[in-house]
């Protein structure tokens, strides 16, 4: 019965349009590549990424070790595969926290516009936005100790206002639309309208923003791990691999090269995917492109 004005035609054309969007395809391929590597690492890696072989340290890439070995003789390729798992898991959960707390807050604030809670939510958002994010993340991990879980919390907190603000803003404009007014006339409560009518129409927006936040979270996780506040050894992490590589930069540059490329390609893939999704969901832009 709910009749969101979703563009049914667009759904049908989505696949065709997607296939004609090279950036979207590139983003999808890169993202799938890293997600695939992360999943595969549960079943198989060329070597045990935690096994040390001091005698074989700092080897340049060979057919035995595709990306060479690190300062403990560990296989860099295997470490990157497992590192992908950490990066992706941290990013997914952190963004998940942002969505699951931010969206309800935003929807509530929009439904009760001008109420005290709306004011509190928005000022709370301002407060979090005003904090230097990396510094606060470092403080949080100083309080709770370093580790993947605390990195997730630190990154997640900064995702809450992003989604709260986004969904409040978008929901506010939806509240003035006819189909919502019709639902109100039909006697539906604010909460029910928010869930049944507003939320479905925010989905596209949330998916696009989610992808972008996801890529930002991968970068943030790398930065935290780089300063030593991410997942703890022996679990490999891209950011910590870079930190470890730093003193070897003149001796063995490949130690810094591959983890850096992994981060760049993952973030690039997610950004391209996000941009592609936005283009595909925005008919105006799609027209402009063709």
């Amino acid at each position, binding site marked *: 019965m709910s009749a969101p004005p979703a563009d049914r035609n667009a759904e049908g054309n989505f696949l065709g349009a997607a296939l004609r969007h090279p950036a979207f395809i590139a983003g999808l391929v890169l993202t799938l590549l890293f997600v695939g590597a992360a999943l595969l690492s549960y079943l198989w890696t060329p070597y045990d990424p935690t096994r040390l072989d001091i005698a074989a340290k700092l080897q340049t890439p060979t057919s035995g070790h595709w990306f060479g070995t690190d300062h403990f003789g560990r296989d860099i390729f295997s470490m990157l595969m497992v590192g992908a798992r950490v990066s992706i898991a941290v990013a997914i959960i952190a963004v998940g926290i942002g969505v699951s707390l931010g969206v309800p807050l935003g929807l509530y604030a929009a439904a009760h516009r*001008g109420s005290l809670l709306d004011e509190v939510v*928005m*000022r709370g958002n*301002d*407060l979090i*936005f*005003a*904090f*230097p*994010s*990396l*510094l*606060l993340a*470092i*403080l*949080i991990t*100083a*309080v709770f100790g370093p580790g993947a879980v605390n990195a997730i919390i630190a990154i997640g907190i900064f995702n809450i206002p992003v989604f709260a603000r986004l969904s409040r803003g978008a929901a506010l404009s939806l509240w003035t639309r006819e189909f919502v007014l019709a639902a109100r006339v039909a006697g539906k409560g604010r909460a029910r309208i928010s869930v049944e009518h507003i939320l479905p129409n925010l989905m596209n927006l949330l998916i696009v923003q989610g992808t972008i936040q996801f*890529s930002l979270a991968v*970068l943030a996780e*790398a*930065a935290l791990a*780089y*300063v030593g506040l991410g997942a703890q050894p022996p679990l490999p992490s891209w950011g910590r691999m*870079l930190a470890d*590589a*730093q003193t070897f*930069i*003149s001796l063995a*540059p490949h130690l*810094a090269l591959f983890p*850096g490329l992994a*981060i*760049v*390609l993952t*973030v*690039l893939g997610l*950004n*391209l995917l996000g941009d592609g999704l936005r283009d595909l969901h925005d008919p105006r832009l799609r027209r402009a*492109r063709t």
Partner: protein
Amino acid sequence: MTLYLLRRLLSLSLTLLAASIVVFLVTEIIPGDPAAFMMGINADPAAIAALRSELGLDQPVAFRYLNWIVGMLQGDFGQSYTYRVPVSELVGDRIAVSLPLTLYALALSTLIAFPAGVFAASRRNAPGDIAIMGVTQLGVAVPNFWFAMLLVLLFAITLQWFSAGGFPGWDAGVLVALKSLTLPAIALALPQASILARVMRSSLLDTLDEDFVRTARAKGLSRSQALWGHALRNALIPVLTIVGLQFSFLLAGGIIIENVFYLPGLGRLVFQAISQRDLIVVRSVIILLVFAVVAVTFLVDIAYAIADPRLRRQRR
């Protein structure tokens, strides 16, 4: 207008008050005793206790909070536990590095982003546009600390054109000092320039689509005349907003880059202060940074309100 101003000022003060409580509480529950850290592993417990009372750490929490707030309102930020000098002096020294670095990076980023964005917009979907957008996509995806490491490898270790880190101080000469800030500024500027170029391009394209520009073109202006004459000016508003945001982001966000290049800046001061549990420095610097962000937002809001009286009523 006055009422609006008062309302905004009140909300600003409340934000700062809330921020001060959050910062104070977070630094309060950090495990680790500043005095024990300073005294080291073989210290006598009595000596640690003596130092605690010398630093005023044995006083009640509420008292110390009020002391801190009242002090700050009078411009006294307290004395650093480890360095034993006033926090304001430390912050002053460090801002002399962080602020120029931020401005340098911002200047670089703007100088790169403006032409790139305008060029891309003027050749929409042509190879030039696609190339620039591709490069900026890459620029956004590169972690700045990794880029910094590559810069060090190439320019400091291999070519030895720049030193790998450190800051000789402004006394060593402006050019020498600027030179030591160059690699860090480049590392900071790249991602910012990429973001800015993308904003510039899309903002220009949006204005080019707007009615007044269409009208201008219909009246016979060429595309580039329309671009330069009408669109650019109007497209600058969102771009300048982003530049403003980037300024406060860079001021606090240079922390990792300051660490990579070993610059005695504000970010590194806080980073070190956290690990040394010099909590008074941590608190005061974070509050100053929050204040900077809030103040910039406030000024932007006021500017908008003056420019567009409608906002005064609508904006919440």
